[in-house]
């Protein structure tokens, strides 16, 4: 048995079977169980180590060859695999909402597995093809009847345009390996890569699909998309940097990543502060999150990578709770514009609290899960340049302003509207546990330490 068969082919097959099954409520629980099972297996079954199961000796080999190309999952990748699968399980666990398509559960598994395949394929540049396949899978769920599709179409266009750029740059990279002194070729590769990743990560000014998508599509699905795609693409990008020493040691790359990260934080934060639509605010907050990820990678040291990995768990919890709360509110309102959501907190206090807490966490409020990492990143960037940290602070202030405006709109209502909780019991439990975890992980950030212990094994050079 080999690892890619266990963690890619079997879950993909199960996702396909789930997709074909009739729409029933139990499909969701089966999908959740599949993800938890394979995540647990990623922790419990070591790759490349012989172990005994009953009377049988089993050894899981790390690679599988398909059509002449290798898929490789070694023991170092298992923690990442478990993290991705557990995180997807979190999205599948959320109580079903009326607007959520039954197909979401099978497609979410399919997309997660395909993006995992993108991280394990060798040569790793073929990842662009898998990312595009994942995009094609999720597109039908992003199209909401009666709403504009421009966000979904732009998402498809931008991701599709990135694929040829990444594939071409991969081919050119083989030329650099043969002739590392060719500066012109290096420059051409860097330009192609930069444009390709700018498309993939929605770097300003190629971000226009994010606010459009958050304004007009199901926010639960959009939340999943805005979590899984940037995470997988950023990991793919780190893999890039890790493999090529000329890229890893380039001071201009670090500078570019730092500048781009700060620009994303500043732009996303300031834009969020001016929005009048809760969905659009969510979209710009995700841009800020991408900015922090780029900033951590741009720090260039093993600490930067540790910070990046540390951000994965807070990010998935914040985005999950935020998107879920938004989806609940959007079910009860004509739109998520400020004028339409006035007083919704009085009817949906759990959703409103979840929204505000996850928003505050992303803005870096002390005692919430986002705070320790943002504080560390602020300190690290201040050590490089105080103007950098000032620009980051401006972005975070923009996020704070947007949360205050959202809160004001949510609670603003005539006095005669009484406080009632219209969320059902499973929704209340899910939102409460999620909100509590934002606080608890913020107070005890050291609980993520076991995850960090595995970082050096994720990448060959950069994390060590």
């Amino acid at each position, binding site marked *: 048995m080999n690892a890619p068969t266990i963690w890619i082919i079997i879950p993909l097959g199960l996702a396909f079977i789930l997709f074909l099954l009739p729409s029933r409520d139990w499909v969701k629980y089966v999908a959740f169980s599949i993800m938890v099972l394979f995540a647990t297996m990623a922790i419990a079954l070591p790759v490349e180590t012989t172990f005994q199961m009953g009377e049988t000796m089993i050894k899981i080999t790390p690679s599988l060859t*398909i*059509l*002449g*190309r290798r898929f490789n999952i070694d023991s170092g990748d298992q923690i990442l695999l478990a993290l991705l699968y557990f995180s997807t399980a979190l999205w599948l666990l959320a109580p079903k909402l009326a607007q959520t398509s039954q197909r979401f559960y099978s497609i979410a598994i399919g997309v997660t597995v395909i993006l995992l395949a993108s991280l394990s*394929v060798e040569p790793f540049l*073929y990842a662009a*093809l*898998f990312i*595009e*396949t994942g995009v*094609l*899978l999720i*597109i*039908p769920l992003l*199209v909401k*009847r*009666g709403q504009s*599709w*421009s966000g979904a*179409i732009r998402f*498809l*266009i931008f991701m*599709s*345009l990135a*694929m*040829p750029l990444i*594939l*071409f740059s991969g*081919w050119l990279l083989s030329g650099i390996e043969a002739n590392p002194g060719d500066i012109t070729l290096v420059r*051409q590769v860097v330009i192609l890569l930069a444009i390709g990743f700018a498309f993939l990560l929605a770097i300003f000014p190629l971000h226009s699909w994010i606010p459009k998508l958050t304004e007009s599509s199901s926010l639960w699905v959009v939340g999943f998309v805005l979590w899984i795609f940037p995470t997988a693409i950023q990991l793919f990008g780190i893999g890039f940097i890790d493999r090529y020493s000329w890229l890893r040691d380039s001071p201009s790359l670090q500078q570019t990543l730092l500048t781009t990260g700060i620009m994303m934080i500043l732009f996303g934060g300031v834009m969020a502060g001016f929005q009048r639509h809760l969905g659009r605010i969510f979209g710009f907050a995700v841009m800020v999150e991408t900015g922090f990820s780029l900033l951590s990678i741009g720090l260039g040291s093993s600490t930067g990578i540790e910070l990046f990995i540390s951000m994965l768990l807070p990010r998935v919890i914040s985005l999950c709770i935020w998107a879920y709360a938004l989806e609940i509110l959007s079910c009860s309102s004509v739109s998520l514009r400020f004028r339409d959501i006035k007083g919704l907190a009085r009817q949906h206090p759990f959703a409103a609290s979840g929204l505000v807490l996850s928003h505050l966490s992303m803005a870096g409020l002390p005692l919430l899960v986002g705070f320790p990492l943002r504080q560390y990143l602020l300190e690290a960037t201040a050590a490089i340049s105080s103007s950098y940290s000032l620009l980051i602070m401006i972005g975070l202030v923009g996020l704070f302003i947007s949360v205050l405006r959202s809160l004001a709109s949510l609670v603003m209502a005539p006095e005669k509207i009484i406080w009632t909780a219209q969320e059902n019991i499973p929704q209340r439990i899910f939102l409460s546990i999620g909100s509590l975890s934002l606080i608890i992980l913020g107070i005890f950030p050291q609980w993520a330490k076991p995850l960090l212990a595995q970082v050096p094994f994720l990448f060959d050079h950069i994390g060590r």
Partner: protein
Amino acid sequence: MAVLYLSAFWLIQANWPLTMAAAKLVTGWMACTILAIARYGSHTTPPSETAWPQGHLFRIFIIGINAMVTIIFSTRISVWLAISIPVALGGLYAIGLGVLYMGITARAFRVIIALLTILIGFEIIYSAVERSILVTAMLSVINLGLALIGGYFLTIEESEVAL
């Protein structure tokens, strides 16, 4: 589109074994069939895109501009990527056509056709530098996926008009 895929096959078979190039042709024609079935099964008249430049003259003009730009850049591209000039010409022309078409439409179905055209152009050029079977298979999946998405968009559009 079918003619475009046939032309792409002609250029690709210069670099690839005939069977693999034929696989691309078959996939392309399958994508065309999916789009054609979706289009002819649709009974709604697409709204005219008055916000965008219209008219045959304008289209002939931009196609001419695209041809000129392609001719100018194809020599440089063929030297840069070490590919033959016909391949560079064909690939760049298709990419240019796709980009232009995408630039003058906002309708989902047409955007899909534009993306497929860009992809054909890319595949023509990429075939000269990469011969992996996995890449060919994945690109075929992406072609078919895009065509299915195009069909899906058209179906949704029609059901919304019907409502």
